[in-house]
């Protein structure tokens, strides 16, 4: 059966009333938990798992998948409105999305995020249908060597994320890397920088770092005299993107979708990189990079498209190989195994109804998300007119609930406070949190893959240069570094663009 025939069959499955309802419930629940900072899809799916036992496996998977991409989607709402990234993928959305909100353009940011996500979802669905096998073989040709090169490129990209001083961006990226080393050594199990606290043996949770540095620090900044304002935004612009906004967003949405679809297939880290990469790319190729960080709509459109495309293509390794690319996929694979359906290379032939039904439901789910969310855009944006004295306690409470619910551990709340303070101090000194978080997220992946690559090559460092993909990626990283660091080159580049 060809991909398109399969997809048609899938739509028949997905349009069955029960499955349609499952898809709606899933996307709705997903949107809600996504909006609540810190409440992730992993916990929600685990808790709802027993409730899906009476559904047939196809409906169950359609619903659980809906929760997953619905949450990706809802996560951007909290990031844009309140500067609260609940997941790694929405960290970059904060940068320009929150600035847009402060300028009263929250509705535009939310709408473009919705439209970009929907477009990316449509393209990713077709990509899954047509190109699963070649994408899989691409993912498998990636070894630790290629991943190492990719992470190096990602870290160089962190410098590009920076708006101000490169030296400062470099410093916070390194700080992020150092923080990511706290915990248990992945190779030999030794504990590092844990102060003998068992709570630190697994390192510092991402949600704690991101919410502390962005959300809590933002609250501290706002109640701190000089910047004090009564409202997030003093006035509200029209909630719908103008023709100019749409024109600016077309390219970023396309490029974000392409990057996200490719990187999403890579297990472990690919999906995390996609939104960062999409943002860095847009900033690099922009005529006027200074607009980024000050509410550029491209800075919302590109990463939001990328993370949604990545969330969907990350189903490819799970459904076609039985290999989960992240914790959510591992849960979904487990849910299928308990129902006697084993995800793996034979799934497409054994259960074509399930495989194609789920893929078709993703397209439907994205349509539902658009329908659920577009009418809400105006209402969400009005949230910004709620006075801070009411909004702050609510945000703080939600942050605490969210952070606590990840591990059910009160220690994480103290850490949250500490990172809030760190974020406040960094901002006061003119350091940005974005590159820090990127260093923090990429650090463990870089370390793990670098050490694994060397261990497999018996300590021979030349593998990074002799394997073509790795050498190519490293060359791009070097090039990027050169054009970022050398001011002369940069000046020339800008004049060249203006001509």
């Amino acid at each position, binding site marked *: 059966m060809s991909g398109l025939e399969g997809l048609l069959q899938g739509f028949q499955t997905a349009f069955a009333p029960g499955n349609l309802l499952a898809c709606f419930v899933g996307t709705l629940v997903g949107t*809600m*938990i996504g*909006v*609540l900072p810190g*409440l992730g899809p*992993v*916990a929600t*799916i*685990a*808790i709802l*798992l*027993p409730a899906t036992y009476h559904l047939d496996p196809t409906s169950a998977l359609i619903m659980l998948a809906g929760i997953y991409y619905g949450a990706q989607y809802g996560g951007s709402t909290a990031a844009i409105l309140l500067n609260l990234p609940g997941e790694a993928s929405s960290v970059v959305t904060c940068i320009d999305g929150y600035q847009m909100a402060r300028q009263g353009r929250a509705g535009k940011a939310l709408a473009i995020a919705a439209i970009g996500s929907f477009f990316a979802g449509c393209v990713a669905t077709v990509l899954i249908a047509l190109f699963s096998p070649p994408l899989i073989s691409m*993912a*498998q040709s*990636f*070894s*630790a060597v290629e991943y190492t090169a990719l992470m190096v490129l990602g870290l160089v990209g962190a410098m590009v994320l920076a708006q101000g001083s490169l030296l400062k961006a470099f410093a916070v990226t390194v700080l992020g890397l150092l923080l990511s080393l706290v915990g*248990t050594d*992945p*190779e*030999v*199990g*030794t*504990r590092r920088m844990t102060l*003998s606290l*068992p*709570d630190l*043996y*697994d390192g510092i949770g991402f949600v704690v770092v991101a919410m502390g540095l962005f959300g809590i620090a933002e609250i501290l900044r706002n109640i701190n005299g000089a910047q004090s304002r009564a409202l997030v935004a003093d006035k509200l612009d029209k909630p719908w993107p103008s023709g100019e906004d749409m024109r600016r967003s077309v390219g970023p949405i396309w490029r974000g979708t392409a990057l996200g679809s490719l990187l999403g297939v890579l*297990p*472990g880290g690919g999906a995390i990189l996609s939104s960062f990469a999409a943002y860095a790319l847009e900033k690099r190729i922009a005529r006027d990079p200074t607009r980024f960080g000050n509410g550029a709509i491209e800075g919302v459109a590109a990463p939001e498209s990328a993370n949604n495309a990545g969330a969907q293509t990350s189903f490819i390794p799970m459904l076609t190989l*039985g*290999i989960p*690319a992240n*914790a959510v*996929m*591992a*849960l979904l694979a*487990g849910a299928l*195994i*308990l*129902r006697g359906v*084993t*995800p*793996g*290379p*034979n799934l497409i032939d054994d259960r074509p109804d399930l495989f194609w039904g789920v893929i078709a439901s993703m397209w439907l789910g994205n349509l539902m998300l658009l329908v659920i969310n577009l009418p809400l855009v105006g*209402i969400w944006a009005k*949230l910004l007119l709620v006075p801070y004295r009411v909004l702050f306690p609510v945000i703080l409470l939600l942050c605490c*609930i969210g952070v*606590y*619910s990840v*591990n*059910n*551990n009160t220690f994480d709340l103290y850490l949250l406070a500490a990172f809030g303070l760190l974020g406040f101090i960094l901002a006061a000194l003119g350091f940005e949190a974005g590159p820090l978080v990127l260093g923090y997220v990429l650090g463990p992946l870089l370390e*793990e893959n670098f050490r*694994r690559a060397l*261990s*497999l090559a*018996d300590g021979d460092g030349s593998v990074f240069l002799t394997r073509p993909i790795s050498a190519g990626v490293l060359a791009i990283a070097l090039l990027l570094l050169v054009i970022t660091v050398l001011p002369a080159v940069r000046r020339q580049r800008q004049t060249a663009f203006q001509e």
Partner: protein
Amino acid sequence: MLRRMFIAAGAVSLAVLATPAIVTPALAQKFPDRPITIVVPYGPGGTNDIVAREVAQKMQEQFGQPVVVENKPGANGALGTGFVARAKPDGYTIAIAPSSVLAINQWLYKDLPYDVEKDFQPLSLAGTTPNILLVHPSVPANTLAEFIALAKAKPGSIAYASMGAGSTGHLNGELFKALTGADIKHVPYKGSGPALNDLLGGQVQAMFDNLPTGIVHVKAGKLKGLGVTSLKPNPMAPEIPPVANTVKGFDATAWFGFIAPKATPRPVVDQLSAAIIKALNAPDVRERLEKGGLTVVASKPEEFAAFIRAEKVKWGEVVKKANVKIEQ
């Protein structure tokens, strides 16, 4: 509408957080008279979590009181397990823990926040599950004997992946090295998924993976399955012989069981254990768990206690013999 969203969102968050916070000091005439918490010392989704949630649902029906599963992940299970060691021994806080927590980690880590013998009262061994030795098709060995011969002929040429330093896959590999004298190189990953991915891509040559996730690739012809780590073949893969058939004394089954704090009153221990055993023997629970690769045992407290002691001695010898070191 906004208000409604918030109420709905609040309801979801409450459901997610449903943690029994009410502690009544009144004398419990009848156990249980309030909700019971089962602590899972890992994140949601693993075997511990799945077993706990299956059992919790059935216990709830039996007791007429809510039975709540609470994930307290961290430090290879030590955080959540340590929490239960210090919990009030009244039967309202119990835990599920795997072989690594109850019989292996004390040999690997110096500073565990619990002592299995002193802190816990075993309730029931829920079940066992073996690992499977997988090799990439490019490895010129179709039987375990051929694989051992190959590893000995070319020392260091075979790399084996594991789910992490100190994981069952790692200990299986080290036990294998100790018993056969074969020189294979350990490459740890974070979890079974990425390790399998590299094995399928041929970046590493071998791996001891959990049976349910590993066997899929053998059945699809993408990997070769050379042996299961239990003493008997597993119904999920009857055609794969035990490693012990070739390597004398290789017995390395992972297991999962329920425990309570040590000083829990005997009648409460008996009630809990009976409820857990009944839950595990419910046909629908058994069927789902067995599909997931678990051999359901459902033993009594004394049997489980003796089992833990025996396993602890066995793994102590393995760690010493194989010279597995985690903490310097």
